[in-house]
């Protein structure tokens, strides 16, 4: 076993298992253990522009081991959570192997693994280990320490620091590119495995019924102090009236020295117990890692306005109509001929749903998009529960009418069917099976099958 793999197994499996087993074997502590396992098997096809069919067979396994209330006093003050992922590619023909060589792997990843201390001294949360950071910047994995101090003045203070865990030369993680279902990390110029530090913090409103907000800062930098990402961001939600909410968030990106992301939403739910209204605006400039030259090219923001009105017509019966307008500005400095100042993309959608109590539901959605290709989708689906949820059956019929001036070879009408079933014999076990059949101008029969077994045990 190579040193790299040895470290992987010791650090990835050995240490967490050792912690769990040692805690388990301590008879004096009433610790709650949880074991979750998801096994996902998939078989599907990718068609190439040459007309070749590339068959894909994959098996993904997730194992989560957790221990709660480690101190055994019923407070759940200290806990441990971890999740592992094993990815296997198999059953590929020799001919296909030439094209997917980098996909044949049996990589294992530690998705997350941390020790959590909850409300230490009634005001401090600590989380140490590999963990997920989610905020207005993005989601990032970090090997480090996060601390949240809950003050008595409706304010929480969060500070964190650690090493960004992505493709680093040890056990993989959620953001490892080699674990993406059809990626392999081979397409990019280089696999980014440089050690980077991530640190930041936030100030957040806490325990207010009608106000929620946060301002935060995060920086990711290499050991050479080159910045991979740096943002300051803020979000705020206020419930102005019992049925009127306003939320807004914005982020300033220091790499491109611009506002990279603005999202504002108004929502009025349950007006006269009949109508929900949702209106949102999104302004976005795509950003990449600090070393990417793609940051140079992205100048013009996307401006998107989206509206949706939902009508509650009766118990379990609702319909909706909505639409969006997305505007892209062209280079304002150009002196070119025949270039529109603004490129428009717009669409509309409508649909409805009928629920039959706990038995299930059926729904119809119609979507039309215009601007980057005309696209019409008619989607009819439903769910039916049998034997008090022992079985759940799902079905979906889709018709797609596609007219793309840029890729005319894709134009046409296609049909698809999805059929699925879920069997839940006991609370701790779920078995899913789904098949998808598509027919389009490239393939008379495209087949996909997905099976999943979910296990969830408390010990």
């Amino acid at each position, binding site marked *: 076993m190579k040193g790299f793999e040895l470290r992987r197994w010791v650090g990835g499996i050995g240490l967490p298992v050792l912690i769990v087993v040692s805690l388990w074997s301590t008879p004096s502590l009433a610790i709650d253990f949880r074991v979750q396992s998801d096994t996902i098997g998939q078989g599907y096809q990718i068609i190439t522009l040459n007309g070749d069919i590339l068959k894909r067979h994959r098996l993904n396994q997730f194992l989560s081991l957790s221990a*709660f209330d480690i101190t055994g006093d019923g407070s759940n003050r200290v806990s441990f959570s971890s999740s592992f992922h094993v990815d296997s590619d198999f059953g590929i023909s020799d001919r296909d192997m030439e094209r997917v060589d980098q996909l044949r792997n049996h990589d294992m990843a530690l998705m997350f693994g941390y020790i959590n201390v909850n409300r230490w001294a009634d005001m401090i949360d600590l989380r140490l280990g590999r963990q997920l950071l989610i905020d207005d910047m993005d989601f990032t994995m970090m090997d480090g320490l996060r601390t949240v101090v809950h003050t008595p003045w*409706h304010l929480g203070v969060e500070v964190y620091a650690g090493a960004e865990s992505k493709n680093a030369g040890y056990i993989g993680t959620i953001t490892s590119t080699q674990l993406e279902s059809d990626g392999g990390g081979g*397409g990019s110029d280089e696999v980014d495995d440089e050690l980077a530090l991530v640190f930041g913090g936030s100030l957040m409103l806490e325990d207010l019924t009608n106000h929620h907000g946060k301002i935060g800062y995060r920086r990711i930098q290499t050991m050479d102090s080159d910045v991979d990402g740096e943002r300051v961001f803020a979000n705020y939600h206020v419930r102005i009236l019992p049925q009127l909410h306003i939320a807004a968030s914005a982020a300033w990106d220091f790499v491109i020295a611009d506002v990279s992301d603005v999202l504002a939403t108004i929502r009025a*739910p349950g007006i006269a117990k009949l109508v929900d209204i949702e209106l949102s605006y999104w302004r976005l400039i795509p950003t990449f890692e600090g070393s990417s*030259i793609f940051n140079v090219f992205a100048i013009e923001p996307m401006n998107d306005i989206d509206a949706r009105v939902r009508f509650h017509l009766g118990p379990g019966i609702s319909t909706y109509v909505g639409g969006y307008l997305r505007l892209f500005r062209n280079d304002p400095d150009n002196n070119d001929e025949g270039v529109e100042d603004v490129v428009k993309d717009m669409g509309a959608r409508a649909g409805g749903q009928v629920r039959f109590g706990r038995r299930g539901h059926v729904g119809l959605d119609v979507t039309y998009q215009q601007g980057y290709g005309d696209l019409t989708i008619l989607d009819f689906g439903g769910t039916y529960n049998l034997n008090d949820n022992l079985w759940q059956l799902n079905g979906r019929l889709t018709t797609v009418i596609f007219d793309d001036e840029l890729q005319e070879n894709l134009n046409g009408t296609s049909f698809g069917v999805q059929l699925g079933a879920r069997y839940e014999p006991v609370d701790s076990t779920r078995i899913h099976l789904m098949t998808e059949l598509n027919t389009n101008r490239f393939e008379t029969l495209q087949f996909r099958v997905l099976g999943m077994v979910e296990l969830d045990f408390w010990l």
Partner: protein
Amino acid sequence: MRHTTRYAIILLGAALVVGFAIAGSVNPLATPPKARPFTPSPVIFPDQEIPLRFFHDKHLAEDMDCTDCHDAAETSVRSSDILVPVGLEGEETCANCHDMEEGADADPPSACSTCHTDAYKPTFPDGVARHETDKALNKPASMVFPAPRLKMNHKIHVDNKIACSTCHGDLKDVQVATRDNALPLMGKCLECHDGSTAPSECRTCHVSRADGRLVSTYGTELLKPAGHYRMDAHDDNYLKTHAQTARGDEAYCSQCHEENYCLKCHNGVSRPLKIHPNNWILIHPVSARRNNPTCTSCHRLQSFCVDCHQRSNVAHTETYGTQGNGNGYSKLKYGGFHPAGWVDDIVKKGSVRGPRHHSFQAKRNIRACASCHVEKTCARCHSMTAQSGNFGFYKGQGISPHGVGFSGSRKCKALIRTNKRMCVKCHSSSDPLLNNCR
């Protein structure tokens, strides 16, 4: 941007958060409107059956105390406790005032129909008086009060001198008190459970598992937010809008969901069918070209998109080595995929670009480019330095992608200050052009 400006932005934001915290502690909705805009969740308070007439308004008008009838509330420590008089034992409580022997002639009226609905017609054996209800041959329909899916300790509230009307409202205009007109909404609880007056953690009241997360599944029923207090209604569109709530307050979501729940979709392993309809591979270009931000919440452009596109010959592989079956470049020659005018030599044409020139697309939606092309594709023309490719080194053509006014601009300075590696991918480190941005 200088450090002082950065710190100023952070300090300004911090000041705003503190300001909002102070403003927020003055609750504008502390006194709810008289007519409630919504009612408590039937998952928390399952449907009750109350086949009785009752007049809280008349009882309160007689200056009765709540505990005259609901005395059990003073000592109750569980939400499953029945706090109303029920059955023959409960009837004795009513009989303290209602003289059933006198019946309809009593004051207050005490006939069977005074309290029981018309559906109940009691019959008695011969010789048994009507007020001897324990000897009735038929019994009235029982009241059903399913245990709420909450933790509730009335005793603590009573001991803390919290009046019944604080939570249940003023019932002086109410007849039969039901879930929909007398049980408190969560917002009412949060007026005191604010983290300082009383604990604010969700599990203080909601039933939780050993890991501290809330129990959200009750048989075939699912407890999920209705969106009354946040923009988190788990409705038919929430799958597409949940990011705003999750990004704003991850800890809030984690009250119910563990990381594994998020990863079922976000780890990129299995394709969530609610997001991707049938024939998705065929139609996904439209969504991607719309600069759809949701794509990158699960997929990474330079691995997932580029890899699959190269493998399936959608993207040419000329600048990348031998990955692929080798005929990608020959079949999809440079510009062959894109429409005419995509890569017009604007130097020769006097800097005139047509509407389909790739530069417009790159400036407004570089993600679409990056889903097929790697940086070297761009550098091939835009670099001022030699670039390595499949067939050795070639000199970049030095076509500037920067717009008018870029040199010395705020963006130019920010790019070179934060990560100079980006600049030296196309410029030599000694390029005097970089001095304008340093």
